[in-house]
């Protein structure tokens, strides 16, 4: 997994609350293999009209923000379906950080597992950042080590689960760590079989 430390990039405001994972990637696109890339499906029905043409007013369609690697949104970003494809769509588009006042829990876990930083800011700070970006498209810097977002000398703190922070900073993957716990797992299952004999499904 690609580590995330500090990123200075174009940030696109998405001034909407409750951008759910059905909007991040509509279900009809999820039959494709990841190898084909999911970036073109990101926010598909907000970016494109039914005839396939771009909706001109939508922020990601504006030349200033088209290449954004950071997006700033309102509360409850990524709520809903557990589809990791929502994260694939963001990552394959080129987005590496989402800034918002709150995130769907499953989305945030999925994001971290793919090197995408969910940076949580206060509701007021999110509004200020959105206004700033709307007034004058610019780059912002997201520093995960320092846990702040800076632009033109204005600094905004953000929060992220400390474990997720370490995972992102180092690009760690859980699986190798877990496989090193084989002995503890074996011990647990041996004890558990006595404590909860009913936990294994009856078959046949």
């Amino acid at each position, binding site marked *: 997994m690609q580590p995330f430390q500090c990123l200075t990039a174009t940030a696109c405001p998405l001034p909407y609350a409750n951008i759910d994972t059905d909007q991040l990637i509509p279900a009809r696109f999820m039959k494709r293999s*990841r190898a084909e890339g999911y970036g073109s499906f990101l926010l598909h029905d907000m970016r494109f009209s039914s005839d396939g043409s771009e909706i001109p007013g939508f922020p990601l369609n504006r030349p200033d923000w088209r290449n954004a690697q950071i997006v700033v949104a309102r509360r409850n970003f990524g709520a809903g379906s557990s589809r990791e494809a929502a994260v694939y769509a963001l990552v394959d588009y080129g987005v590496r950080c989402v800034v918002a006042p709150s995130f769907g829990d499953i989305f945030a876990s999925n994001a971290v597992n793919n090197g995408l930083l969910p940076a949580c800011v206060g509701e007021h700070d999110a509004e200020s950042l959105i206004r700033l970006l709307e007034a004058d498209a610019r780059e912002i810097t997201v520093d995960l080590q320092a846990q702040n977002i800076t632009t033109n000398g204005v600094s905004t703190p953000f929060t992220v689960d400390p474990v997720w922070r370490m995972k992102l900073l180092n690009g760690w993957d859980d699986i190798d760590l877990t496989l090193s*716990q084989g002995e503890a797992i074996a011990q647990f299952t041996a004890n558990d079989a006595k404590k909860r004999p009913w936990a294994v499904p009856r078959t046949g």
Partner: protein
Amino acid sequence: MAQSPSGPQTLFDKLWDSHAIVTREDEQTLLWVDRHFVHEGSFHAFNKLKERSAKVSRPDLTFGIADHYVPTRRSGRSIDPAIQNMLDQLERNTSENGVMLFGLNDPRQGIVHVVGPEQGLTLPGLLMVCGDSHTSTHGAFGAWGFGIGASEVAHVLMTQTLWQRKPKRMRISVDGTLAPGIGAKDIALSIIARIGADGAQGHAVEYAGSAIRALSMEGRLTLCNLSIEAGARCGMVAPDETTINYLRGRPFAPKGEYFERAAEDWLRLMSDEDAQFDREIVLDASEIEPVVTWGVSPEDALPITTAVPDPESIPDSGKAAQIRDALAYMDLKPGQKLTDVRIDRVFIGSCTNSRIEDLRAAAKVLSGRKAKVPGLVSPGSSLVKQQAEAEGLDQIFRDAGLEWVESGCSMCVGMNGDIVQPGERCASTTNRNFKGRQGPGARTHLMSPAMVAAAAVTGHLADVRPLIEERS
């Protein structure tokens, strides 16, 4: 809120402790997973296993179920090749790993969150995961069920474990008696409207109180199912005699003496009297009315007796903008009475409301009446379908003019091609009124099965209560 291991514990604390393998210094805990369900969307995770040349660690605890993409009209029709490919991939991935599959042609096939309980795969005290956010449903049995993403699915497939940080605990108590015609869906939507679609984020929810105790297992499943729509990853009800009676004799549940011994353990799974919760919410059941959604988030829910909100009267400019956007998408006018909203079709189905009791509630209203709009009824499993047909419910739906089809996720998510057409308005028993959820440009109003039936026979959003009273 920190609690000493010897102090009073919540039900969730007890489930957490019984699954904790190791806890790291940074408070991440490795948890044992008792059941893992995989559906067609699991191909991303199985591909991750292939990259590592890994196999499923515990096929005996892993169950495949075809539901998201399955066609609901099966006889004599060819299946879209892209959808057939999704079904084939699941078949291949499960058979290569020795995982039992409830596939398209299995007589027990259905929606994972209906089949799990029905087969007795869902039991109290289990930790259950699935790459589906509505895995919270299984909490109805006092199990700890939660949805995970593809990376986590791959992790569980390879290790039968997951790393988690302990969430906060929230208790939602509903005391008193529900009025006739009002059910679990109305309770759940009332809660979401009250606390918001992110109101329970980071929390494990326990539902308590006399109105919850009075719910059947079907009602509890609906309630726990919708926990995720309030942002909670899991929601649960402590097991009681209702739970035990439901489970006795289920195919995968313990049998005979083993069952009775297990039941003793299960009935001890409850929050201690003095257990502390990080947050408490209390609702009065007698104040709950039939609820419908008007907007594009489940939090946009109101009693049917009220009107569409007016953004001009909302002081918070962000909230007002959100309402304006929702009304534009839904093509509604501020102040419009909810009962004046005409609909184009209805859908009865989904992991939220497709169980036998849901079908009975809808059929009771539809019986002897005609629907003014077309609609689809998709039972939650092939066994629910069989039961409904034995009771003659299918005939009631057909006589009313609705289409009776096979089971699957169907029009809740539209993956199998059952979609609401652009601009059409659907009264739906499902769980999400998100923009485009039921198809591009679809307008969804969420409500209970009885309320969907009322909308069908009147052609507009309607209060089911007078229609029930006419019958009694």
